[in-house]
Structure formats: C-alpha cells, structure tokens
C-alpha cells in the first residue's frame, strides 16, 4: 500500500478524470427508488432525489423527459448518466423516468388524469367518429406480438381488402413512451391511412405504464387521424384509452370496431336489393295499371264518338236516299217534258204536240192526241 504512488490532482483535473472513469464504467445506469425533494425550476429544469432506507442520490434533467406530474413518495425508475459537476458535486443526469410500482403508478395516473381533465382532453365533444368503411388503418403495436396478430387476423377476416400499415413500437419499458409517440407521428404521416389503432395485450401496471405517460396521451389527443386504443384488459382504464376517440377492450375488439363485416354488409345489400326490386316492381305494376286504365277510358271515349258519327251518318244516308230522283219513276210515275221543258199542267197543250215521257228505265217519245 505504502509503495503505491500517490496521485495528485487539481479539483478540475479530479472532476475530469472521475467523469472519464464514470463514463467508461457506468455510462448508463438505472436507479429505482422513492422520489423526494422533487422540484421544477423555471418550468424547465427538474431536480429530485431517489432514496431508500440507507442512501439517497440526486438527479437532474429536463421536464421533457417527465412521464407526467410526479410527487414525493412515488417509486420511480430513472435511466441516467452519473456525472460529477465542477460546481455542484455529484449528480445523475436522467434521460428517462418511469413511475414504478402499482401504488405509485396509480397515484401518477390520477394526478395526470386530473390535469388533463381540466384541459378538457377527455371531453366527449372531442371524440371523432370512425370512418364506416375504412380501407387502410395504421397499427401502432409491437411487431410480431399477439396483439398485432389478433388484430390483423380478425380485421382481414371481416374486410379482406383492408390495408394495414404496422408502425412498430416498444409497448413496455422505460423507452416505450417515446417509441409509441414516434410511431403515432409516423402513422399520422400515412397519406392513405384513415384510422390509427394503438394496441397491445394485457399486462401488469408496470407493463402498461407507457399508456399513462403524458407524452403518449398528448400524442393521441393531437392525432390528425381518429384513434382507437385497445389494451388487453377490462379494469382500470389507462389515460390513453380515455383520450382516444374510441376504446376497445382487446385487439380483437379493435378489429371489430375498425373493419366492417363484409359478409354482413353483403347480406344487407342483398336484402336492400330484394326490397328495391319489390318496390320497383310494385311501382311499375301500379303505373302500368294506371296507364292501362287511362288508355281504356280514352278508347271508350273514342268508340263513343265514332258510334255517334255512325248514327249521324245513318240519318244523313236516309235523307240522301229520300232525294233519289228515280224513286218516283220506279213507282210508276213519269216525268213529262216538251221541247226539253218539264210539264206541270195540261194548260196550253194542244193535240199534236210532241212530248217525252221519262220512266225509270227509259223515255217514251209521244204525240198528244187529246187533252182532258
């Protein structure tokens, strides 16, 4: 021991060499402990300690890495880099924070819920309708997970032409919140996507912590596309589900919400088609009946007019018949003329006068022998 050389440093040199050693040995550590002395300075910088029964360590970082409102006493998991500061001494610079433990998670979620409730993020008026016949949905889930597989299977069974764009995301762990936020952002950039489904299977409160993370909840609230959040559990709604436009209890339930049932739609269309055909048929029959009835009336009217003309014509025919100049001749009368003039009297007729007597079938040329 005594033979070992004693190194001598200036304070700045010591801080520098200590930081190099820490960087080499512990560039990234995860510390889990009870939160104490939590404070936010100038709305930007966060200071707190994590402690247990025997020790406490100080942390420093940005508000942007906070999962939501925090309070002393909560159990917190911090991902951090140890640093020795030249002025303020040893600290852990946190990059990610996650509330840990069921009680703390519940408390953190309640605090965040109160805050977001005041902002109106859960208002029913904000909820948007889902398109009835979506052709493309973006799914934020862990690639290859049971949730993704269940969703795809049921959605494609119901609407086989549905296009599904998976946006792979970590759905648990300290990096889950950031990963989900990034996936939601990518999903919103799909020009053809009509709905975003954010889904995962059930799990412990710790597993589902990202769905109560303020960054995730705000990303869902700000989504351009309508959202469906489906976490595989029924109790204790997550804030992500509360803020979504629609909530589904399981990935399968989300598929039912999002994908129309083609078989059912087809059946409905067939029923509608039959109904329309029947309506059309009865309209045509009714119209044809009306036309036929009108036509019959018109025909009757014309028949009446024609018969009336026939009757009038028959009367005229009788009148004309009575005018037949040969009729009296056929009855035995004769038409007597002298020098082409008709004779109406025996006056001035002397014996020897030549006369013509016209009968029905010819003319007699005669000479008057006497006049009585």
């Amino acid at each position, binding site marked *: 021991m005594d033979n070992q050389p004693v190194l001598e440093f200036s304070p700045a040199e010591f801080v520098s060499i200590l930081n190099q050693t820490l960087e080499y040995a512990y560039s990234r550590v995860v510390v889990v402990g009870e939160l104490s002395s939590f404070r936010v300075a100038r709305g930007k910088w966060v200071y707190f300690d994590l402690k247990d029964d025997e020790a406490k360590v100080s942390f420093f970082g940005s508000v942007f890495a906070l999962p939501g409102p925090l309070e002393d006493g909560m159990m917190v998991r911090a991902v951090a880099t140890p640093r020795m500061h030249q002025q303020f001494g040893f600290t852990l610079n946190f990059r990610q924070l996650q509330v840990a433990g069921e009680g703390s998670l519940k408390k953190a979620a309640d605090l965040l819920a109160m805050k977001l409730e005041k902002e109106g993020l859960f208002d029913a008026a904000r909820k948007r309708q889902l398109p009835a016949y979506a052709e493309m949905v973006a799914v934020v889930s862990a690639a290859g997970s049971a949730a993704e597989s269940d969703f795809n299977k049921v959605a494609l069974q119901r609407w086989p032409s549905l296009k599904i764009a998976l946006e792979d995301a970590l759905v648990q762990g300290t990096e889950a919140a950031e990963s989900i936020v990034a996936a939601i952002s990518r999903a919103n950039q799909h020009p053809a996507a009509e709905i975003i489904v954010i889904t995962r299977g059930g799990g412990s409160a710790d597993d589902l912590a990202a769905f109560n993370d303020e960054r995730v909840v705000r990303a869902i609230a700000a989504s351009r596309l309508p959202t469906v959040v489906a976490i595989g559990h029924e109790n204790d709604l997550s804030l992500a589900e509360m803020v979504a436009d629609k909530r589904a209890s399981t990935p399968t339930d989300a598929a039912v919400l999002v994908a129309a049932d083609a078989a059912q739609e087809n059946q409905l269309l067939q029923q509608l088609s039959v109904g329309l055909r029947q309506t059309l048929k009865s309209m045509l029959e009714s119209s044809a009946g009306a036309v036929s009835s009108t036509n019959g009336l018109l*025909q009757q009217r014309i028949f009446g007019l*024609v018969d009336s003309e026939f009757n009038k014509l028959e009367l005229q025919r009788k009148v004309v018949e009575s*005018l*037949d*100049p040969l009729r009296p001749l056929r009855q035995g009368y004769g038409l007597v003329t002298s020098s082409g003039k*008709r004779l109406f009297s025996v006056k001035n007729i002397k014996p020897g006068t030549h006369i013509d007597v016209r009968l029905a079938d010819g003319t007699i040329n005669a000479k008057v022998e006497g006049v009585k």
Partner: protein
Amino acid sequence: MSKNSKTSYKQLQAQLQAEVEWFEGADLDIDEALAHYEKAGELIAQMQLYLSDIKNGLIKSGAKRNKD
C-alpha cells in the same frame, strides 16, 4: 285511318252537306239530280269506311297492348 288520308272526315262531311243542300234548289234537272245523288252516296260510303278504319285501328292497338 281512311284510305283517302288527304281528305279529313270534317271535309267529307262538308262535301256531303253541300250535295244535300243542292237538292233544296228549284227547277232541278233530273240528270244533274242523279249526278248529285250518286256523289252523295259515294261520300257516305267514304265516310262509313273512314269511321270503320278508326274503330278497327283502336281494336287492333288494344289487343296488341293486352298481349304485351
């Protein structure tokens, strides 16, 4: 329609009326009277045919509609 489609029923009626009115004149010549009488008879036959054509046409079109 009538075979003589150029002359309407109304025109035929007017012609017949003129023929009948001719007989109302005085001192009628029997040969002229015969000519007018025959003309009136022809007009009546034409008018009867005209009306029959209308009636038959209606019956035929009614039967066709019922068949359709």
